C-alpha cells in the first residue's frame, strides 16, 4: 500500500527528471513514451488506492520529518481519503491522456523533451497538492502548479507576447497567494498546527471572527488559482500555451485546485456562513459573466476557456451551498469533457495551421469526422443533455440552489446554462458546418491521438451514471447535503432546464445554419463590451499596471543613478589605485629597499603614535 502511494506520487516526478535530463538534447519520441508510461503507472496506482479507500477506509501516511522549528512541526504526511483519491484519479486520467496526446501534438516541436519534463512536474505538483495532509504540503503543491503553469503557458517564449501571458498568470496567482499565506499564518496562530486534522478538531472552538478571516483569506487564494472574478483575466490569456497544456490546466490541475481547497477545508467554510454565501453569489456571477464573454468571442480556445471559468462558477456555487460532493462530482465530470474539448480544439488547430479564429473556419466536418464527433459529444456533455455526464452534475447544482431557496441564484445558473448551450453550439456550427472559409486541405490528427481521446469521450458519456455511488463515497468525509425538494418538483426542474437548454441549442444551430446574425450587429455596444471582456483588462492596466509601471520606472532610475554609480565608483577608484601602485613593482632592488625603509618608518611612527595614546 505504501508502495502504491509512493509510485502514484513519485512516478510523475521521475518522468519529469528523465525528460529533464534530456531537455537540451534532440527531440526523442521515446522520452514521450516513457513519460506517458510513468504517468499511466501512477494513475493505475491511484485506482488501486481508490479501491483500498473504498473498502478499508482512509489511509494516512507519514513519510518523514520536514520542518521542525521551535513549536512548528511539519511532516511529509499524506492523506488518501475519498476526496483526494477522486482528485488523484481525475488528475491521473486526464494527464495520462494529455501525455499520450502530446506525443502527437508536439511532434514537430524543438522543445519536445522539455515539454514532457514540465508536464510531469505539473502532475507531480498537483498530486502533492491533493494528497498532502497539511497546509504546507498543500502550499508547496499550490506554488508548484503555479510555477509549472508559468513554464508551460510561456512554453513558446520566443513568440511575441507569450511571456506576457505567462507572467500575467503567475503574477495574478501570486497576488491571490498572499491571501492564502495569511490564512495559513492565521491557522497556525489560532489552531497551533497546520494539519487539516488538527484544524478540524480546533475549528469548533475558535472564535467566529477568526473562522471568518481564515475562510475569507483561504478563499482569496482559491479565487486566484480558480481564476474567479476579479482574478479571472489570466485564464483566457493562458491560452497562449500549447493546447495540451490548456487541457491540463483547465481540466485537472491548476484551476480545480481552488475548488478542491474549498471542498477539502469544508469544515471551516461551513462554519463561516458569510463567506459561504459570498462564494455562492460570486460563483453564480462568474457562471453568467464568463459565459456571456464566451458568447461573442472568436478565438476557439478562449471560448472554451471562458466556458471553464463559467463551470468553475457552478462548482463554487455548489461548494458555497455546502453541497461539497456535488461540487466535486461536477469537477470530475467537467474534467473529462473539458479536456476532451480542448484536445479536440488542438486537432482543429493543427488542421487549420494554428488558425484560431472560428469565423475563418467552417465545413471541417467533412475532413475530420472523428474529432467532430468527439467535440460534439463534449459539447453535449458541457450543455448538460441527458444522458451525458454534465447532465448529472450540473443539474444537481441547479437543484441544490433551488432547494436552498436561492431562487435568484437558480435563475442565474439557468441563464448560464442557456448561454453555455448557445456558445457551445455556435462554436460547433462555425467550426464544423457551413461554408469553408479557407483555401488549404485540412487533415485529421494522427490515429493514436484520436484513440487516446476515446476514453474521454466514453467518460463524458458514462461518468454521470456513477453519481449515487459517488455521493455515498464522498459523503463519508464531507457533511451530507440533502436536496430537500419533492420528486415531482425535481422532475419539473430537470424538464425546465432541459427544455431551455435544448431551445438555446436549437436556436444556435438555426441561427448559424441560416446565418441570421448580420455583421452590423458587431457595432452594437453590448457586443463590443462583451468582446472587450467588459473592459476589465483595460481597467486593470489603467488602474494598477500604469501606476505600477511608473513606480518601477522611478526605481530603475534610482537604481541606475545611485546604487549602480556608487558601486561603479568604488570599483573604479580601487582599480585606479591599483594602476598607480603598479609602478612600485618595477623590479628595481634599490627602489624596493627604499620602500622597505619607508614602510618601516611608517610602522615605527604608527607604533609610537598608538603607544602615545
Amino acid at each position, binding site marked *: 500500500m505504501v508502495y502504491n502511494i509512493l509510485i502514484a506520487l513519485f512516478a510523475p516526478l521521475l518522468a519529469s527528471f528523465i525528460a529533464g535530463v534530456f531537455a537540451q538534447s534532440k527531440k526523442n519520441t521515446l522520452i514521450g513514451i516513457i513519460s506517458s508510461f510513468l504517468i499511466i503507472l501512477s494513475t493505475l496506482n491511484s485506482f488501486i488506492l481508490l479501491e483500498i479507500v473504498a473498502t478499508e477506509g482512509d489511509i494516512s501516511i507519514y513519510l518523514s520529518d520536514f520542518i521542525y522549528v521551535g513549536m512548528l512541526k511539519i511532516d511529509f504526511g499524506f492523506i488518501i481519503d475519498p476526496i483526494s483519491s477522486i482528485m488523484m484519479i481525475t488528475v491521473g486520467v486526464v494527464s495520462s491522456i494529455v501525455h499520450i496526446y502530446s506525443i502527437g501534438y508536439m511532434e514537430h516541436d524543438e522543445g519536445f523533451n522539455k515539454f514532457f519534463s514540465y508536464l510531469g512536474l505539473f502532475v507531480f505538483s498537483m498530486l502533492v497538492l491533493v494528497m498532502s495532509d497539511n497546509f504546507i504540503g498543500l502550499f508547496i503543491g499550490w506554488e508548484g502548479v503555479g510555477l509549472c503553469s508559468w513554464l508551460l503557458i510561456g512554453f513558446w517564449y520566443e513568440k511575441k507576447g507569450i511571456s506576457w501571458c505567462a507572467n500575467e498568470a503567475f503574477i495574478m496567482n501570486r497576488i491571490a497567494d498572499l491571501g492564502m499565506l495569511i490564512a495559513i499564518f492565521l491557522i497556525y496562530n489560532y489552531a497551533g498546527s497546520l494539519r487539516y486534522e488538527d484544524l478540524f478538531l480546533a475549528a469548533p472552538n475558535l472564535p467566529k471572527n477568526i473562522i471568518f478571516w481564515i475562510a475569507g483569506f483561504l478563499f482569496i487564494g482559491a479565487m486566484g488559482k480558480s481564476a474567479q472574478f476579479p482574478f479571472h483575466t489570466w485564464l483566457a490569456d493562458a491560452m497562449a500555451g500549447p493546447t495540451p497544456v490548456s487541457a491540463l490546466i483547465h481540466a485537472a490541475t491548476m484551476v480545480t485546485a481552488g475548488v478542491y481547497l474549498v471542498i477539502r477545508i469544508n469544515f471551516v467554510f461551513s462554519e463561516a456562513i458569510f463567506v459561504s454565501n459570498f462564494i455562492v453569489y460570486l460563483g453564480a456571477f462568474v457562471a453568467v459573466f464568463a459565459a456571456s464573454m464566451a458568447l461573442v468571442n472568436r478565438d476557439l480556445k478562449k471560448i472554451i476557456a471562458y466556458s471553464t471559468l463559467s463551470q468553475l462558477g457552478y462548482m463554487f456555487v455548489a461548494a458555497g451551498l455546502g453541497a461539497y460532493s456535488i461540487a466535486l462530482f461536477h469537477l470530475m465530470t467537467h474534467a473529462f469533457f473539458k479536456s476532451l474539448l480542448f484536445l479536440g480544439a488542438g486537432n482543429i488547430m493543427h488542421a487549420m495551421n494554428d488558425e484560431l479564429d472560428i469565423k475563418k473556419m467552417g465545413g471541417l466536418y467533412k475532413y475530420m469526422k472523428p474529432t467532430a464527433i468527439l467535440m460534439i459529444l463534449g459539447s453535449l456533455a458541457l450543455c448538460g443533455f441527458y444522458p451525458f455526464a454534465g447532465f448529472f452534475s450540473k443539474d444537481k447544482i441547479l437543484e441544490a440552489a433551488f432547494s436552498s431557496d436561492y431562487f435568484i441564484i437558480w435563475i442565474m445558473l439557468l441563464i448560464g446554462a442557456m448561454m453555455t448551450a448557445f456558445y457551445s453550439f455556435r462554436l460547433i456550427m462555425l467550426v464544423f458546418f457551413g461554408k469553408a472559409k479557407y483555401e488549404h486541405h485540412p487533415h485529421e490528427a494522427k490515429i493514436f491521438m484520436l484513440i487516446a481521446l476515446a476514453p474521454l469521450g466514453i467518460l463524458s458519456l458514462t461518468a454521470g451514471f456513477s453519481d449515487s455511488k459517488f455521493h455515498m463515497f464522498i459523503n463519508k468525509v464531507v457533511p451530507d447535503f440533502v436536496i430537500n425538494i419533492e420528486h415531482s418538483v425535481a422532475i419539473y426542474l430537470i424538464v425546465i432546464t432541459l427544455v431551455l437548454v435544448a431551445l438555446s441549442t436549437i436556436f444556435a444551430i438555426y441561427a448559424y445554419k441560416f446565418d441570421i446574425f448580420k455583421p452590423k450587429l458587431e457595432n452594437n455596444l453590448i457586443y463590443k463590451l462583451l468582446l472587450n471582456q467588459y473592459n476589465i483588462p483595460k481597467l486593470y492596466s489603467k488602474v494598477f499596471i500604469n501606476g505600477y509601471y511608473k513606480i518601477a520606472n522611478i526605481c530603475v532610475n534610482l537604481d541606475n543613478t545611485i546604487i549602480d554609480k556608487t558601486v561603479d565608483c568604488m570599483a573604479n577608484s580601487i582599480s585606479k589605485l591599483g594602476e598607480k601602485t603598479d609602478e612600485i*613593482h*618595477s*623590479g*628595481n*632592488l*634599490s627602489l624596493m*629597499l*627604499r620602500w622597505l*625603509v619607508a614602510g618601516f618608518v611608517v610602522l615605527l611612527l604608527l607604533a609610537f603614535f598608538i603607544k602615545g595614546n
Partner: protein
Amino acid sequence: MIGLNHYLAVSIIMFTLGLIGIMKRKNLIMLFFSTEILLNSANVALVAIGHFHNDMTGQVFAMFVIAIAASEIAVGLALLVRWYKKTGTIEIDSLMNAKG
C-alpha cells in the same frame, strides 16, 4: 661616566648610517657592508642593554646575530661571485629581472 643612553645613541647613529647606505649605494658589496653595519648596531644595543640589566641574554642574542650575519655574508658573497661571473658587474641595477 658613559651610560646606557650613550651606547644606544651610538647604536642609533650606526643604524641610521646603515639605512642610508642601503638606500644610497648601488654597489652590491657596499650593500652588504651597510647590512653589516645595521646588524652590528643591533649588536651594540643588545650587549649594552644586557650589560646594564645584568642579564646575559642580550649577549647571547648578539652571538646569534653575529653567527647569522656571518652565514649570510658567506651565502651572499657566493651568489655575488656567481653573478659577477655571469654578468661582469655587481651594480644593483643589473638585477632588474625581478620585475613583476
